[in-house]
């Protein structure tokens, strides 16, 4: 109990300081609420947007995009990473494209992708997949390359097939590294979804931010949407950390 308090207290304290500083800036500088609304205004708008059913459909759209896109991108990244780790030829053939895809800002690619795949879910999934894929593939490759070769020799002495070696030795041994890649990937998936929604979309938290800023000119709503987005991102990250603890915490 004491330890838990030691973990929670600093978080609460820093939140309180953040809100107070925010309020202080608004109070001292006297910004109008269409420039920087105070924390109380935002909290009130946040609760109203959730209670009148405005926020949920947008949150749902974004969540689906993030989770599906993450799942697809992480799966492809995992498989590619395993392939890259096991074959130097595959690495040489693919790495120029991988690096080029990663080096091209997703923001610049998004309009093109929306043009090709439409403004619905598919374009968001493509963007999320592209952005999640890279860190997962690299983490998997590095993790599997660093598996102790002595374990591989042991597996070989018991006549492990290639598939058994991958599933029972290499991937479990590389799991800490792979989970590190997934943790980066889940936060990138949120970015991917919002970028996709900005490039074109009917619903989603990114769309709501645009609507609140543009046609509604409801800046507190924009901030409330930002808050929702931050909560979604932090929750997903924490879920990843929990999964990680469960899978490798006992080692």
């Amino acid at each position: 109990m004491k330890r838990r308090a030691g973990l929670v207290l600093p978080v609460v304290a820093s939140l309180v300081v953040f809100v107070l500083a925010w309020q202080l800036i608004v109070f001292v500088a006297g910004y109008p609420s269409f420039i920087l609304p105070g924390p109380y205004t935002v909290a009130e708008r946040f609760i109203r947007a959730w209670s009148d059913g405005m926020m949920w459909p947008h949150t749902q759209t974004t969540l689906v995009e993030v989770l599906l896109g993450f799942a697809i991108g992480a799966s492809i990244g995992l498989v590619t990473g395993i392939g890259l780790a096991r074959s130097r030829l595959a690495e040489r053939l693919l790495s120029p494209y991988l690096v080029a895809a990663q080096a091209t800002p997703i923001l610049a690619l998004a309009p093109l992708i929306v043009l090709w795949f439409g403004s619905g879910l598919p374009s968001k999934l493509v963007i999320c997949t592209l952005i999640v894929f890279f860190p997962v593939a690299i983490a998997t490759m590095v993790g599997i390359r660093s598996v102790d070769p002595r374990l591989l020799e042991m597996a070989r002495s018991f006549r492990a097939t290639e598939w058994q070696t991958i599933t029972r030795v290499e991937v479990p041994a590389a799991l800490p590294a792979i989970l590190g890649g997934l943790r980066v990937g889940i936060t990138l998936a949120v970015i991917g979804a919002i970028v996709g929604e900005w490039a074109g979309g009917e619903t989603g938290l990114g769309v709501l931010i645009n609507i609140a800023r543009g046609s509604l000119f409801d800046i507190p709503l924009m901030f409330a949407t930002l808050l929702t987005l931050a909560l979604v991102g932090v929750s997903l990250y924490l879920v990843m950390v929990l999964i990680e603890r469960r899978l490798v915490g006992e080692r």
Partner: protein
Amino acid sequence: MATQEAPATGMPPVIAPAPTSAPPAGISVSGVSLTFHGARITHVLDGIDIAIRPREVVALIGPNGCGKSTLLRVLGGLIPADAGGVTIDGDPVTGPDPRVGLVFQEPRLLAWRSAEDNVRFPMELAGWSKAHQEARAEVLLGLVGLREFANARPATLSGGTRQRVAIARALALEPSLLLLDEPFSALDALTRERFNAELLRLWDRTGTTIVLVTHSIPEAVFLADRVLVLSPRPGRIVAEISVDLPRPRRIADMDSAFVSHVAAEVRAHLVDTTDDSIAMEEARIAGEAGTVPAVRSRHAETAPGTPAWFDPFRPEDEA
């Protein structure tokens, strides 16, 4: 030490007289040579011939880098020989062989699995049923005295206990030949002695043929029926010393005059192969220059004309 240490002796297996191994194998190594073609060409093994009887315990001993561990891997089918071959009961070894169980210098356990699941690893790979795996793992853990550690993770076990798990794993598929690559070299001297005695007990119960690589002369003599001394690279067998010590052997036998005598004999062969310059120098000092035995000499040939510097009872050899 915060890690768990298992009791010295194991419980008898549940399925009482269950055979824990296939019939022991006779092994024949004929003309095995091996060269590594890396950045530099390295001749590792040169014309190795060994015939091993079923249930025999053979120790391979030799200087660092003489290819003992490589020879062990050739026996287990992990490394193919360039020339010559290995047969177990007349059937050639062509790759990693189900009749062989390997124990490495390090336990090489899978850190994310419990002791029991590590022991079950080879059975999983072989596609055994769950029930079969569980029954076999229980027998094996009992055999190495680790039944109550079945659910422990390797990280919570002491080094010796981990090596026991590794030995149980090597016995999983009922091998007829057990290969051990310096299995106890990471253990402290006292634990090591106990493990030597335990290995003999295990050998008595399972009846496998054993080939063991070691750096310890007393260990080789205590465990083996025959000690084979290898030369520096390229490895050749330069001496073959029979240990006619009756079985069952006890730790106390390690201190017997007989064991000391045989150990000194082994050491003499190691000295004249390990570092020829030292041997030559010793020979010169003893006024015996020029009579250093040929490197290829077998034990039987060197015994009669033993040079003066070879004295099994020389005090500094038995410090």
